[in-house]
């Protein structure tokens, strides 16, 4: 029956039978979240099987919450067989740190915290002003911590749909001993075969939810009923309008002369460094509201909320080349 034209409907059915749910018969529908979840579990298990000393980078943000949940599923009934690590910029929203500590306590997992503040004190990382974004500086602290603990794999919750450089990155992304990414010389990655071999000092960055989109993450959070920091849900907050964005008023981001402080309903789509993460106007108070908002949004997650990615089209790529995850 090969080679028939799509212009003939009857033949069409014989070659590419239209059907909306796969499997059929006794099988429960297998949807995109099932497929993505299973892929992530497969990747997490490969990391534990192939690497000696993995660590999961955990910030308390939504993507790392999903990753943590997937790790619980992957190794059940055993405990998660690796520690968590948070590279704390010292610029986090307090709600997120409180949430992070609650999660760690309730799961009984080991959390390592390494702070950018400490790297600055030691002179390893340098800033011009206290209010500079510390996002890029995280790379210094991260690479130092990798060497301190001898980690050979860092699991992260980055997704390819977030940013153009990330869309080109492998799921198992090789980093040299400086933590650097060489985008032009990546290991080919085929089928589901992952080459995690490294020499001492080198490491892999592994992204099990590479193929998830922002909408997938929210749907999964709703399906699995995962807890999140309150910042993700609509709340009243003091903000100032600056350019296209709403800047939250915090100890580090004060209104400039002439700017007008107003209290508005907002929520955060990403949670990161206070100096470069902005909320969006929103009244979404439940996961269902957020889902609806996510699928109808006209801006990307980073475009709407991150001021650091906007400075240059290549800023993410540059940071990754310097060791950023």
């Amino acid at each position, binding site marked *: 029956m090969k080679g*028939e034209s*799509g212009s*003939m409907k009857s033949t069409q059915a014989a070659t590419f039978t239209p059907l909306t749910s796969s499997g059929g018969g006794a099988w429960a529908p*297998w949807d995109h979240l099932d*497929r993505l979840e299973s892929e992530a579990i*497969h990747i997490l*298990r490969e990391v534990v*099987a192939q690497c000696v000393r993995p660590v999961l980078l955990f910030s308390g943000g939504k993507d790392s919450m999903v990753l943590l949940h997937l790790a619980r599923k992957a190794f059940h009934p055993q405990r998660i067989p690796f520690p968590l690590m948070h590279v704390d910029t010292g610029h986090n929203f307090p709600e997120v740190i409180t949430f992070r500590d609650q999660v760690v306590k309730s799961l009984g997992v080991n959390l390592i915290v390494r702070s950018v503040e400490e790297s600055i004190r030691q002179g390893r990382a340098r800033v011009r002003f206290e209010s500079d974004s510390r996002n890029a500086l995280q790379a210094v602290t991260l690479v130092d911590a990798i060497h301190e603990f001898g980690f050979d794999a860092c699991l992260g919750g980055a997704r390819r749909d977030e940013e153009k450089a990330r869309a080109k990155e492998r799921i198992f992304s090789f980093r040299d001993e400086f933590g650097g990414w060489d985008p032009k010389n990546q290991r*080919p990655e085929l089928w589901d075969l992952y080459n995690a*071999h490294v020499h001492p000092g080198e490491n892999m960055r592994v992204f099990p939810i590479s193929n998830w989109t922002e909408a997938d993450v929210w749907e999964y959070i709703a399906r699995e009923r995962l807890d999140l920091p309150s910042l993700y849900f609509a709340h009243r907050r003091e903000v100032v309008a600056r350019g296209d964005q709403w800047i939250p008023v915090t100890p580090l981001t004060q209104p400039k002369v002439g700017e007008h402080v107003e209290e508005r309903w907002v929520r955060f789509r990403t949670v990161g460094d206070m100096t470069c993460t902005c909320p969006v106007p929103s009244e979404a108070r439940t996961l269902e509201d957020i889902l609806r908002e996510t699928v109808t949004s006209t801006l990307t997650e980073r475009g709407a909320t991150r001021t650091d990615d906007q400075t240059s089209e290549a800023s993410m790529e540059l940071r990754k080349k310097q060791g950023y995850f």
Partner: protein
Amino acid sequence: MENKLKNCQELLRFITCGSVDDGKSTLIGRLLLDSRSVLADQWAAIEATSTRRGQSQVDLSLLTDGLQAEREQGITIDVAYRYFSTPARRFIIADTPGHAQYTRNMVTGASTADLAILLLDARKGVVEQTRRHAQIVRLLGIRKVVIAVNKMDLVAYGQEAFERVKQEFLNFAEPLDFRDIVFIPLSALNGDGVVLHGGHMPWYTGPTLLELLETVVLDEEILNSSFRFPIQLVTRLSEENGEERRGAQGRVESGTVAVGDEVLLLPSGRTSRVSAIETYAGRISQARAGQSITLVLADQIDMSRGDMIASVAHPPRTDKNFEALVCWFSHTPYDPERRLLVQQTTRCIQGKIDTVSARLDIQTSQLVPSPAQVAMNDLVHMGFKVQQPLAFDRYEDNRTTGSFILIDALTHDTVAAGMIV
């Protein structure tokens, strides 16, 4: 609330093959635009770049060219993955560059694709590049192929031109023995036949490209194949009736498995029965291809990572020797002195290449016997010998158990990928 949120969309992964001239970027751009997957800030960014470069139209390839070097040189270097969705389905597009290193990149992008779209220019029909692309798609075992006959606007949307190209492709593709081919006439530039029918081709009553992508049946073959379960990890489970239990963690790569099934453990060749299937959500009575599970066997037989649990009735081959078609990736040509590791399913062992019997000329589909050298982008038939027996199938029958990568034991680079014949 849970039910309302779970709308049960399937995920389809596909690859697009064609050069810039065929309108590949325009086609992807059209799919993304018309499915409302390009957001305002992304559009503003590529609009600004296009204007800065003095282009009169927004360059849609900028949506996928993510690296600085790509933007500077205006070329695509590496496979990019794009994500979009419609109410019916989620899609992942592997967008591969058409020129330099095309074999290596296309093989990579095709390895995880369920379906391939081959772009043809309605004016030119089958060209050299079509032959290469079709050949690689076929070798990588993609069963579903859509021939998008593009630029119909330049042939006055004529049915004759479409039929001519279609016949030409069928004649050429005959020996390739594709199972499913669907032809769709379209104009990526104007949008006809991509998401909407448009009014120019009343003679075409088949689906638009997107309609087809939304309704293609997925993974029925992988469900109907023989059961294969490569073990990733072995874990200790809670005791039952005073007996210690161990579970094999992994993903069902093909077929299905149910509690009570008799299974084979390879390479040891011992048989046992499935006594339980465990998941985080609790015990289940059966599992299907794609599911990550923990499998418990009735007998306490020795098992470890790299072993495979498989169907007793239809077992895979277990052997230290096999033949494969290999795509060489490394910039360094094959050197028999270098030590190699073979990574197949969850097993990674030492191996060596015994024979290099022929090189496949991708332009002519001819086999060239005893090639003098194996260099980057070459496709070669090789004979392998590995340290311990591997459980495998022909790639043609099973993409997961029939595929492997070659790793340089010293540099740790992935130097090649192979498909067992």
